[in-house]
């Protein structure tokens, strides 16, 4: 510090007497010996790296080359007997420089970093500049195309100066509208144009805060011989000296012109090594700083002394360094790079001011900050980091092989580079050289303790290998992040063998046992090309599907053998659908919208966001889509942001099970306590029979709704209007009216029968709901009117609790529902009441007949296929429900869908009792045969009172033990016309202890597992199942899992069961069927 202050004082003194002290350059001697021009891109060839005899440095009195004047910074070259320094505003600046550029992977030299908006530039600059600042870099090399304001920004924000460079047509220039790839510096017009451009662009920086000094050219001496832009082996000697004279005279003119324009900043040139140094001495006499791109390996040899001897000016390296790729071993080697840079900086320190040698080293600009992926080829393979070396340099012996190249142009960065993110910003990963030089720069060459001995000791202890950890950790993290962009998220194999038998199986004893097996494999692939886009696809492959299972409908059954008759009439067995997309989805989150696509992956509903009439239904079908091999749901969901906020669109071939290809659009907003939404749904076409799986496609139609809501404290009221079913306007239907007592009715049926048509008023509906939540009381009430064809969707919302009583989504009814949930400590009590009545009641079955010479036409219940509406779940109902729950840990909600695994209470229990009075019948249902064919089930469901009582118990007894159980009983009605009610009861359980589990059920008089059992009123006197498994881990929701299990199932059959064959010997006896399976499920 003392020395610095002294220097500053001396500088000011000297400045005052500058003219008396200014030295003139000595006149040139005789014509220097011709030099061989150095090949482009390569340092002076065949330079022996032998410690030369130091050139004698003639000490000169301290001089100040530049005068302080003008605005902006004042930068000058200071000199005294100890050497040269660069002073910026009086402060010495040792050039810890960096060749910095911002070219993302995939771009090349034409990329314009500064063309982005300011916000983006600052975001991109910050990590780059901060890293360099932390390293100790205090100056960067930039081309004149950098806007001056950003030079100031970088200086003021990060303390980093900028050296401004004009390449002087090194790579071609536009001369009077014509592109000249290799300029001729002897041409007067060329000189005039180039000079004018240099002056025009440099003048923009003369008063720019943060600009350090001017740099002219870039190895222009190497460009005198070739028209190619590729770096090749340098030609021997200086064959183009004649052209070089013109180059250097132009340099000389420009240096003088720049001095005249801006006396406050020094001027340097960027020469290729020291080629033509004698011409420099002759023709650029007023050069302030000798700048060179030098690639002499670990040592600069006699460079400093030669410059002092011939030019008597300080030295600055515009480029120096080493690549980080070992061409001989064909692998990255950042340690070698660090080794070279260590040696180079040590010599620069030794030759810096006052350190005992030439004192001429002002510092230098490392080539380069980050790898340039565009260097090889320049127009192609921009997204590949090319490993090929493009020129040889024996000065880098660690990977030099005679006859081969070892300079890897795309690997010169002291930081590696990652692909840019969606904003075009990338990250860098500093290599070992960064960390090592950061440590090296803790010793400043100008500080007092920087003696030759300390410098040597300081650099000697810097071992590159000690600094590799940071880079390796960074790389590993980035590789991991890249790997995670595409991962196999889940692999699962389900393998099972099954033995089955039953009373109906022919044979005796062991002959009756059938055995088969199933192998099914799942692979889920997840890709994340950018952080805001994720996609996954799951594939299932079936190797074999058992054909003997008593539950005959299952996912893998699609791959069972099928007999076909070929073109020659020969019957043969084939297989379909062995490989299937099990599901796929994607999510794309941008600042303008969210877009989700789904195929056999569930989605939620919009019922809480203004979809008051349930247009967009919840589509979580659980295992049913696998059981019935349905390709649902399938569609897209869009939600707008920013100015599109409030807009949602859903569309797809089948967005819910049985939906036609459709588009649903919703727009809704809230303004304080008010909210509104409008929705419209337009079916595009019919799903068709081939697209529907065990469902009758809906009418191809349209729906429109409006919704208004007002919230005031604990209360909320919602109102909605609906128009739907207009596509059925004018369609005929049969309606009935009860005949008064004693009146003559249609064929004495008790009904009048009418022919009617769908009118406009039949397409209208309205609903109002009120909710109040105050303290322990939560009450809601709702009423609705829906015209006969005003179908919409069911209510997916949860009104305080998961009551079973829900409104029908169908039209043709009026209803009123109310429920209240009362929380008494940990106990919840929730009674509910519903009244529902169809506008047009079901049509009874009246047989055709002739009575007394008149013919009574038959009247059939309506059905979904032939009629514009029907009475189904919108039947006349008076229902009462009592819901109760005891949950000591309300944070895990008892009625949450995943409560089985989430519930954390030691004991939680719920009860749900529903009693329904159904005094009238329904119209016909559509049932499904075991083979999936639709059937009109004759008459509808008869009038019946039914009830259902369910208990659910869950206990997270300990951390290792979880018990989940359900007990139920009731009287249920078939979906078909059967009068018989099923008196059913049962229990199921899951007991998980550590990695073992026992699951099962016991049912009495209940329906079978499939929809056709309910359609055709098929029940079993007893059904039992037990599954004992042991896993590698406890089950976790959604996580892959490995377990081995033994599963047994037993059913008893009676006259109400399918596959029952009455035994004449024991006509009332039960029969049976059973299955025993051993399975393994492997999940990764």
């Amino acid at each position: 510090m003392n020395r610095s202050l002294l220097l500053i004082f001396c500088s000011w003194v000297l400045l005052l007497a500058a003219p008396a002290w200014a030295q003139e350059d000595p006149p040139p001697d005789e014509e220097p010996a011709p030099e061989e021009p150095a090949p482009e891109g390569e340092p002076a060839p065949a330079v022996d790296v032998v410690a030369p005899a130091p050139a004698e440095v003639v000490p000169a009195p301290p001089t100040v080359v530049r005068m302080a004047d003008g605005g902006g910074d004042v930068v000058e070259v200071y000199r005294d007997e100890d050497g040269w320094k660069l002073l910026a505003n009086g402060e010495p600046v040792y050039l810890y420089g960096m060749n910095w550029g911002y070219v993302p992977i995939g771009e090349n030299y034409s990329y314009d970093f500064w063309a982005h908006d300011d916000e983006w530039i600052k975001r991109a600059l910050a990590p780059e500049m901060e890293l360099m600042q932390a390293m100790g870099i205090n100056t960067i090399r930039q081309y004149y195309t950098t806007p001056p304001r950003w030079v100031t920004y970088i200086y003021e924000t990060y303390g980093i100066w900028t050296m401004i460079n004009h390449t002087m047509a090194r790579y071609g220039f536009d001369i009077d509208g014509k592109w000249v790839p290799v300029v001729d510096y002897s041409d007067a017009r060329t000189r005039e144009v180039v000079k004018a451009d240099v002056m025009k662009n440099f003048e923009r920086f003369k008063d720019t805060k943060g600009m350090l000094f001017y740099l002219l050219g870039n190895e222009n001496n190497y460009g005198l011989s070739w028209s190619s832009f590729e770096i090749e082996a340098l030609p021997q000697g200086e064959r183009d000296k004649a052209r070089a004279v013109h180059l250097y005279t132009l340099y000389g003119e420009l240096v003088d012109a720049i001095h005249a324009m801006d006396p406050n900043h020094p001027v340097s040139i960027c020469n290729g090594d020291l080629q033509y140094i004698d011409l420099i001495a002759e023709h650029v006499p007023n050069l302030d700083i000798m700048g060179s791109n030098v690639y002499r390996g670990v040592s600069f040899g006699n460079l400093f002394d030669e410059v002092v001897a011939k030019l008597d000016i300080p030295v600055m390296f515009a480029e120096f360094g080493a690549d980080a790729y070992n061409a001989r071993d064909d692998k990255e080697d950042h340690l070698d790079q660090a080794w070279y840079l260590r040696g180079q900086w040590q010599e620069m320190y030794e030759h810096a001011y006052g350190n005992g040698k030439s004192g001429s080293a002002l510092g230098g600009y490392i080539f380069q900050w980050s790898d340039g992926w565009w260097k090889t080829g320049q127009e192609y393979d921009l997204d590949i980091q090319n490993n090929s070396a493009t020129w040889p340099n024996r000065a880098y012996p660690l990977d030099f092989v005679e006859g081969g190249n070892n300079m890897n142009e795309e690997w010169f960065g002291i930081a590696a580079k990652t692909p840019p993110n969606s904003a075009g910003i990338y990250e860098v990963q500093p290599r070992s050289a960064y960390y090592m030089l950061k440590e090296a720069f803790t010793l400043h060459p100008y500080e007092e303790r920087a003696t030759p001995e300390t410098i040597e000791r300081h650099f000697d202890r810097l071992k590159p290998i000690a600094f590799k950890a940071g880079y390796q950790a960074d790389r590993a993290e980035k590789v991991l992040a890249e790997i995670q962009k595409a991962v196999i998220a889940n692999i699962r194999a389900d393998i099972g063998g099954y033995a089955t038998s039953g009373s109906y199986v022919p044979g005796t004893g062991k002959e009756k046992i059938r055995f088969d097996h199933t192998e099914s494999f799942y692979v889920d692939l997840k890709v994340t090309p950018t952080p805001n886009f994720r996609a996954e696809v799951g594939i299932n492959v079936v190797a074999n599907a058992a054909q003997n299972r008593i539950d005959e409908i299952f996912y893998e059954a699609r791959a069972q053998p099928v007999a076909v008759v070929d073109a020659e009439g020969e019957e043969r067995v084939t297989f379909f659908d062995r490989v299937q997309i099990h599901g796929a989805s994607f999510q794309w989150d941008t600042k303008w919208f969210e877009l989700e696509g789904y195929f056999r992956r569930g989605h939620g509903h919009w019922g809480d966001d203004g979809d008051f009439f349930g247009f967009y239904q919840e589509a979580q079908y659980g295992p049913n889509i696998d059981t019935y091999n349905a390709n649902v749901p399938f569609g897209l969901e869009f939600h707008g942001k920013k100015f599109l906020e409030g807009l949602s669109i859903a569309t797809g071939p089948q967005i819910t099970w049985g939906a036609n290809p459709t588009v649903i659009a919703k727009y809704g907003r809230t303004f304080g306590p008010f909210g509104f939404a409008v929705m419209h749904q337009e079916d595009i076409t019919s799903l068709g029979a081939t697209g529907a799986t065990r469902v009758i496609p809906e009418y191809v139609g349209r729906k429109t709704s409006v919704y208004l809501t007002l919230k005031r404290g604990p209360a909320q009221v919602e109102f909605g209007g609906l128009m739907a079913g207009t596509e059925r306007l004018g369609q005929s239907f049969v309606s009935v009216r009860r005949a008064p007592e004693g009146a003559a009715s249609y064929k004495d049926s008790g009904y009048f029968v009418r022919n009617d048509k769908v009118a406009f008023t039949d397409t209208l509906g309205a609903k109002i709901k009120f909710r109040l939540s105050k303290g322990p009381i939560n009450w809601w009430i709702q009423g609705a009117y829906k015209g006969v064809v005003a179908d919409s969707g069911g209510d997916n919302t949860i009104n305080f609790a998961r009551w079973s009583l829900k409104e029908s989504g169908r039209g043709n009814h009026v209803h009123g529902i109310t429920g209240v949930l009362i929380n008494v400590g940990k106990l919840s009590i929730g009674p509910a009441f519903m009244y529902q009545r169809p506008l047009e009641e079901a049509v009874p079955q009246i047989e055709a007949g002739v009575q007394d010479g008149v013919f009574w036409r038959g009247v059939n219940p309506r059905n979904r296929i032939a009629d514009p509406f029907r009475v189904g779940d919108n039947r006349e109902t008076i229902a009462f429900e009592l819901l109760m729950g005891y949950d000591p840990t309300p944070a895990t909600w008892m009625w949450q869908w995943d409560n089985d695994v989430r519930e954390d209470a030691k004991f939680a229990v719920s009860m749900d009792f529903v009693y329904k009075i159904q005094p009238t019948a329904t119209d016909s249902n559509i049932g499904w045969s075991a083979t999936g064919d639709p059937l009109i089930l004759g008459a509808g469901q008869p009038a019946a009172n039914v009830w259902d009582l369910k208990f659910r118990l869950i206990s997270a007894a300990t951390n290792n033990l979880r018990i989940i159980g359900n007990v139920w009983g009731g009287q249920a009605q078939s979906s078909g016309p059967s009068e018989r009610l099923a008196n059913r009861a049962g229990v199921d359980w899951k007991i998980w202890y550590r990695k073992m589990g026992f699951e099962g059920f016991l049912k009495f008089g209940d329906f079978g597992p499939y929809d056709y059992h309910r359609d055709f009123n098929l029940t079993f006197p007893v059904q039992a199942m037990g599954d004992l498994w042991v896993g590698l881990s406890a089950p976790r929701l959604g996580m892959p899992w490995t377990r081995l299990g033994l599963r047994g199932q037993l059913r008893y059959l009676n006259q109400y069961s399918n596959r029952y064959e009455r035994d004449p010997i024991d006509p009332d006896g039960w029969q049976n069927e059973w299955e025993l399976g051993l399975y393994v499920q492997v999940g990764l």
Partner: protein
Amino acid sequence: MNKLLLALFALLLVSGCPEEPTYVYPIDLNDVVYTYYDGTEGIFPSTSILDHPDNPFATSGMDNVNKWEVESSGAAAAAFYSWAMINVQGAHGEAQYYTALNLQRIFQRELAAPEDLYAVRTMAIDAYQAVLDNFPNDVTFAAEGFVLPLNLLAYDGIVALGGNPQGGWVRITGDNGNGAVVQSLDI
């Protein structure tokens, strides 16, 4: 707001008041009238009976129980439509024969428009001929239970209407004195 209300009112006007539903009454079989349609109705393989505007069974169809009720009512027009529907629902000789029989009755009782009677006669002959051509071996059963061969009944029907049975059919008398018809190819 005024404009909105006006628009809604206009919409309601345009939508119109819904039509009143019409009550469904039974069909008095004696009120059923035969009208000539295209000359093929009721004659296999024509299905034009389904489009006949005066067919009271066109939408409801006819079943195998009520067809006899209609037949026994004596209302020939109603019986014609009834049997024609049975024939379309599942063609067979009995249905075709009774269709022809009731066409004959319509002709003989002049239950059609005078200008259509001759056409009805032709239709009856064609209907009987359809029995011979398409259902030559079908039979029906008398009320007493014995079998009646439809080819003989059809043949006699054609002759009774003054027609000439086609297809080489010949009436013969068996040794037991019972009549029968055979096709000349059989001789």
